[in-house]
């Protein structure tokens, strides 16, 4: 590939354009990949239960056997996000359940402010792998919760543990964090306030 002729360096213009096009394709693709990480992360956490994800949707109350040979201690923790003025407590700190057995636990919420507010509770489970086996058939956390000024409420959560839950799990902790969603409330949730006022 050596040449003795003093020809100027040929500028391979068309070739340059082709390489640039390919590289720009990579750039655009990687910009998209950054955003694709968002759903990928969701899917990855849902499949593996990493990061304390629970299935935050209604589980089918299908037929299952109750494994009375095992008892698992399920603990409840509640907290409100920074700046959120609500009171938020579980009715009991923990329950003992057999895998497969259905339990109902009530959570108490109160809005001490003078304003109607809307909140959303976000669950998390420790240890993370237990999150895959915690099934909720009914939960206040599936929806935004409206609470009128000065009101309080009792919110039920019905769950069962999948009988396939690994043998080494004896205790699991379900934690809820309550976030103020008044500014971003869904219209149908806000409508409940208006319905209540018109009923008065």
């Amino acid at each position: 590939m050596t040449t003795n002729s003093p020809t100027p360096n040929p500028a391979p213009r068309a070739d340059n354009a082709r390489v640039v096009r390919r590289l720009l394709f990579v750039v655009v693709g990687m910009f998209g990949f950054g955003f694709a990480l968002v759903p990928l992360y969701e899917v990855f956490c849902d499949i593996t239960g990493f990061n304390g994800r629970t299935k935050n949707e209604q589980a089918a109350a299908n037929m299952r056997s109750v494994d009375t040979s095992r008892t698992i201690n399920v603990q409840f923790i509640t907290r409100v996000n920074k700046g959120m003025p609500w009171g938020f407590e579980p009715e009991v700190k923990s329950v003992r359940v057999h895998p497969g057995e259905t339990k109902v636990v009530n959570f108490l919420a109160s809005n001490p402010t003078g304003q109607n507010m809307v909140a959303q509770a976000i669950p998390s489970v420790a240890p993370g792998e237990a999150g895959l086996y915690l099934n909720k058939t009914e939960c206040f956390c599936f929806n935004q919760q409206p609470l009128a000024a000065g009101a309080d409420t009792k919110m039920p959560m019905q769950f069962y543990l999948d009988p396939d839950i690994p043998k080494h799990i004896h205790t699991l902790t379900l934690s809820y964090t309550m976030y103020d969603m008044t500014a971003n409330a869904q219209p149908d949730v806000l409508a409940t306030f208006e319905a209540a006022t018109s009923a008065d």
Partner: protein
Amino acid sequence: MSTVAGEMDHHDHHHHAPSGITRWLFTTNHKDIGSMYLWFSFIMFLVGGSMAMVIRAELFQPGLQLVEPHFFNQMTTVHGLIMVFGAVMPAFTGLANWMVPMMIGAPDMALPRMNNWSFWILPFAFAILLGSLFMEGGGPAFGWTFYAPLSTTYSSDSTALFVFSVHIMGISSIMGAINVIVTIMNMRAPGMTYMKMPLFVWTWFITAFLLIAVMPVLAGAVTMVLTDKYFGTSFFDAAGGGDPVLFQHIFWFFGHPEVYIMILPSFGIISAIIPAFSRKKLFGYSSMVYATAAIAGLSFIVWAHHMFTTGMPVAAEIFFMYATMLISVPTGVKVFNWVATMWRGSITFETPMLFALAFVILFTIGGFSGLMLAITPVDFQYHDTYFVVAHFHYVLVTGAIFSIMAAAYYWLPKWTGHMYNETLAKWHFWTSLISVNVLFFPMHFAGLAGMPRRIPDYSLQFADINQIVSIGGFAFGLSQLIFLAVVIKCVRGGEKAPAKPWEGAEGLEWTVPSPAPYHTFETPPEVK
């Protein structure tokens, strides 16, 4: 040599460069653009350095004496952003602009107009970033890593300016990287096969691919921060179904390759300088190339080692721990190759070589503290302490920046046509070497003893260490003014430099006269 001189006359003949400021505004010449990048990066180095001086002055004593904590946070944040995106990265791009075409026998970069653009948008990016410091509520104060929700829920109103300036920096880097790749692929002189390219060209080639792979991810991350803060999306907001930990995954997916973007070109520089002053060929050329590629590949699968304390599952922690440790294998290959190159060489200790030697030793110290941080169980102790600060300053200051200094001294005669003042340069080296270790080495101990990073105040027991560190910091800062003096003296005059001022230097850049003529290699050189 006579053909080269003839070539030069020929080009001076039809070279109508505009004069004054328009020469610099409209230039498409790789040497002009390279010089602008280098000057810009040096100015940013001084700006970011003065912010470090503010930080060290505040930390000279426990308690709050000079600045408000909120301003201190802005200083740590903007210091990091400026040093990463304003000092180190543009310095490497400047070196690539100057040296890559000359090293592969090309007349210029492949896309000269885009080259002009990729430089000239940078000053605007940093004007926006620095301008945000003067806004009501202050500039960015959430750390250069801009973790959500610090950068979303709790950030000042100027965050949009931060986001746009990062967008512009990213576009500039991507354009620069595309230019480097196209130049290397299409503009090599006849006979310059890939495996004959100098290692600086190779390491930049690989770095450019890293840049186009991860800078768009950073652009995505800042865009998500922007929409979360101003447009009501919930990428990182748990209340809306998002997750702040997701931010860290996206950020470090960019962030870890980014730290290799800031060190791979250094490896290329050191691989040019050590053989030149050892008067031996580089030991293990092809293993250097493969090791660089291996480091680049591994950089994509280690990001979560920055996140061991976020509550990751043990299996993931173990994976990221071992993947991280694996990087020390190709890096070790490089260090051993440099040592083997020096083995039985006839070494002389001019300033570029001194900086290169300091690089090898001090970068290796930074590498070892990195290995310590990779060990998951102990990382829980080191995380977010001054040990981390010590680690990344060893790899970035005594690593990346020392290699840039070495490169500047090595190629200054080629750029300016004058030899720099060796006495003054040695002063710069020795004061820098001593002060940088006084500055960063004690930080390891402060960190191990539990001093947290990014905090304007500290417990009394850290007072002595911090006083020593601050003195080292001021001395290191002042030492860099010697460098400025050396460069200015060298640009203005000095002993005339021959085409090849270093006896053992190899490469096409030494076949053209010093200073390098405005146009080089319009007729391709022969590479055998």
